[in-house]
C-alpha cells in the first residue's frame, strides 16, 4: 500500500529498531519538560486512535473468538456451548465445499494476477516510463467490487453481452460465464484480476524502481537480452517485494465476497459459495452468529498461517540491494 511513501513495500510492517536510540543523543540538550518525557501530551495524542483500536478492533476480535463458542441469534443472550460449533463445522460438507471453492478462486485469482501484474510492472519499467499509462492501469482499482461485478455481468451476459457477441462472432457457442458451474469461479476470479491488477502492478513497480539502472546498462553492454536481464537481474532483486505483495494479495483474495454477492449470489448450485459468502448467509440469513463466528475463526487461522509464512519468506529472501 505504499504508493508514494519513501520506502519500498518491502519495508512493510516488520517492525524496526529506529527511534528509541536516537533520543539519547538529544536527551542531554533536552529541556526540563522533556526529561520527564511527554507522557501527558502523548496520552492526549494517542487517545482517539487507541479508543478506536480497543473498541473496534481488539474487543471485537476477542468477542469474535468468544462468540464462536456460543449459540447466539442476536435476540437472546449468547449461550455457551463449548466446541459444538467447531464439531459441527468439521462435519459440515457445505463448509468444506465452500473452503474448496475459495481455494480454487484464490489459486486462479492470484496466479493470473501475479503474472499479469509482474508483466505490466516490467513493461512500465523497461518499455516506457509514462505516468499516464500508470494512471490508466490503476483506473479499475477506483471502482468498487460491486461496480466491477455488475459491469462484467453485463459484458458477459449470455444473450446480450458484448463478450458473448465476440465469442459468437468468432464462431464458438455462447458461454454462460456466470451461470455455469465450471465457468463461474474462474470468471469471478478474472473479474477481480481486472480490478486489482493495476494496483498490484504499481506496488511491484515501486519495488522495481529501487533496482539501479546501471545494472541493466552494464548487462546490455555485455550483450544480454531483455529476457535474460529479467531472469538474472529483475527477478532475484524483486523477490522480497514480490513475496510481501504476494502474501498481501493472497490474504485479500481469501476474503472475496462483494463480487460473488452481486454476480452469482453463491450459485449455481453452491458452485461459487465462497467462505465469506457462506459465513454471511449463516449470520444474516439463518441468524447463527455463533456458527458464523466459528467459521470466521477458521478463516482467521488460515490467514494467520499465511502471515507466518510471510515472515519466513521475507527473511529467507532478503534482496542484495540492502
Amino acid at each position, binding site marked *: 500500500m*505504499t504508493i*508514494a*511513501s519513501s520506502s*519500498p513495500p518491502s519495508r512493510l*510492517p516488520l517492525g524496526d529498531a529506529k527511534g528509541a536510540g536516537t533520543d539519547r543523543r*538529544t536527551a542531554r*540538550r533536552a529541556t526540563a519538560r522533556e526529561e520527564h*518525557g*511527554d507522557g501527558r501530551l*502523548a496520552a492526549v*495524542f*494517542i487517545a*482517539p*486512535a*487507541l479508543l478506536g*483500536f480497543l*473498541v*473496534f478492533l*481488539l*474487543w*471485537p*476480535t476477542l468477542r469474535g473468538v468468544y462468540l464462536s463458542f456460543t449459540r447466539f441469534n442476536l435476540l437472546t443472550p449468547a449461550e455457551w456451548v463449548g466446541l459444538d460449533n467447531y464439531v459441527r463445522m468439521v462435519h459440515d460438507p457445505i463448509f468444506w465445499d465452500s473452503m474448496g471453492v475459495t481455494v480454487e478462486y484464490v489459486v486462479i485469482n492470484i496466479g493470473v494476477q501475479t503474472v499479469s501484474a509482474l508483466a505490466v510492472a516490467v*513493461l512500465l519499467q*523497461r*518499455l516506457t*516510463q509514462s*505516468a499516464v499509462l500508470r494512471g*490508466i492501469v*490503476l*483506473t*479499475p482499482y*477506483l471502482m*468498487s467490487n*460491486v*461496480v466491477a461485478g*455488475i459491469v462484467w455481468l*453485463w*459484458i458477459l*451476459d449470455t444473450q446480450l453481452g*458484448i463478450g458473448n*457477441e465476440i465469442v459468437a462472432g468468432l464462431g464458438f457457442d455462447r458461454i454462460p460465464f456466470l451461470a455455469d458451474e465450471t465457468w463461474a469461479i474462474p470468471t469471478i476470479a478474472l473479474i477481480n484480476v481486472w480490478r486489482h491488477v493495476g494496483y498490484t502492478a504499481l506496488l511491484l513497480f*515501486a*519495488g522495481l*524502481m*529501487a533496482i539501479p*539502472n546501471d545494472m541493466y546498462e552494464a548487462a*546490455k553492454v555485455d550483450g544480454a537480452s531483455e529476457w535474460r536481464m529479467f531472469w538474472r537481474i529483475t527477478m532475484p532483486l524483486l523477490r522480497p517485494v514480490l513475496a510481501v505483495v504476494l502474501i498481501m494479495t493472497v490474504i485479500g483474495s481469501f*476474503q472475496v*465476497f*462483494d463480487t460473488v454477492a*452481486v454476480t452469482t449470489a453463491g450459485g449455481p448450485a453452491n458452485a461459487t459459495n465462497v467462505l*465469506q459468502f457462506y459465513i454471511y448467509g449463516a*449470520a444474516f440469513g439463518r441468524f447463527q*452468529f455463533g456458527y458464523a*463466528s466459528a467459521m*470466521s475463526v477458521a*478463516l*482467521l487461522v488460515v490467514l*494467520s498461517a499465511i*502471515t507466518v509464512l510471510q515472515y519466513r519468506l521475507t527473511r529467507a529472501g532478503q534482496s542484495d540491494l540492502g
Partner: protein
Amino acid sequence: MAAVADTTTVRRVRRRITPGRAVAWAVMAAIVLLTMLPFYWILRTALSSNDALAAHPGDILPVGATTGGFERALGLQSAEEAIAQGGSGGGLEFWRYLVNSVVVSTLITVCQIFFSAMAAYAFARLRWRGREAVFGLFLAGLMVPAIFTLLPNFVLVKQLGLVDSLLGVALPTMFMTPFAVFFLRQFFMNVPREVEEAALLDGAGKVRIFFRLMLPMASTPLLTLGLLTYITAWNDYFWPLMVSYSDSSRVLTVALAIFRAQTPQTGYDWSGLMAATLIAALPMLVLFGCFARRIVGSISFTGIK
C-alpha cells in the same frame, strides 16, 4: 530515474524498432484496451434504451439514444414510465445514496487520517513509558483481517443503537486503521530531528510543532493516504450491507446491489443499471483525475537512493 538517465547518457543507443519491442508495445496496447473498454461500454449502455439493446447487442455506438437510464437511476421517472422502458419501478433515488456515500467517506477519511496522524506523531516523536508496547499492540492489529471483526462489530453497533445510521456505517474505521498509523509513523520518523529542535529552541511547544510543522511537511503522504482511504471507504460493501436497512443510511454500493436484485421479470434493466454504475464510479474517477499527477508522479521517486 531511468527515463532521465536515458536522455542524458552520452553514448545513448538509438532505439530501433526491434521485433521484441513491437511485441511489447502490442501487449501494452492490449492491456490498455482491456482496462479502458469496459468504461466505454458502461457509458454506451447507459445512454441506450433497453429495447434497442436487446435488438442490437453488438453496436459500438449507443442504440436508441435516451437519458431514460439516468432518469430511472436518479428516481426521476414515474413507476409506470420506468416499467414501460424496462425498469423495475423500484424507485431507487441515487442522488440520496450519493450524498450518503460522500458523508460517510468524508467522515471516515478526515477523522481517520487526523487521529492516525496524531497517534503516529506520538509513536514517532514523543517519549513516554509503554510506547513500544502500545505500538506493538497496534502492529498486532495489522494481523487481524478486517473481515474478521465485522460480525462482532455489527453486534456492538447494534447494542449502541447505531444500526441504520450514517455514523454506524462510519464508526469502525473512523478512529484509525493500524495501517494508517504505521504508514504515517514511518514518515514522521524520517523527519530530521534538527527541524524539530530548531523549533523547540524558538520556544514552540510540541503541539504547535505538530500542527505547524509536521502536518504541512507530511502533506504528500497525508494526501496519498487520504485518497486511498477515501477510495476504500467509498467502495466498501460488506460492512454497509450489514448495518444499513433503509434509505437514510444506504450508500451507493449497497444501493447498486439492490438495483441489480430488483431485476424485472422481463430481463435486466441494463441501461438503468449502467447509468447507476456510472453515478457510483464517476466521483472516484474525477477525484483520482484531480490528484493523480501528484500521487502517480511521486511513485517514480520511490526507492531511489
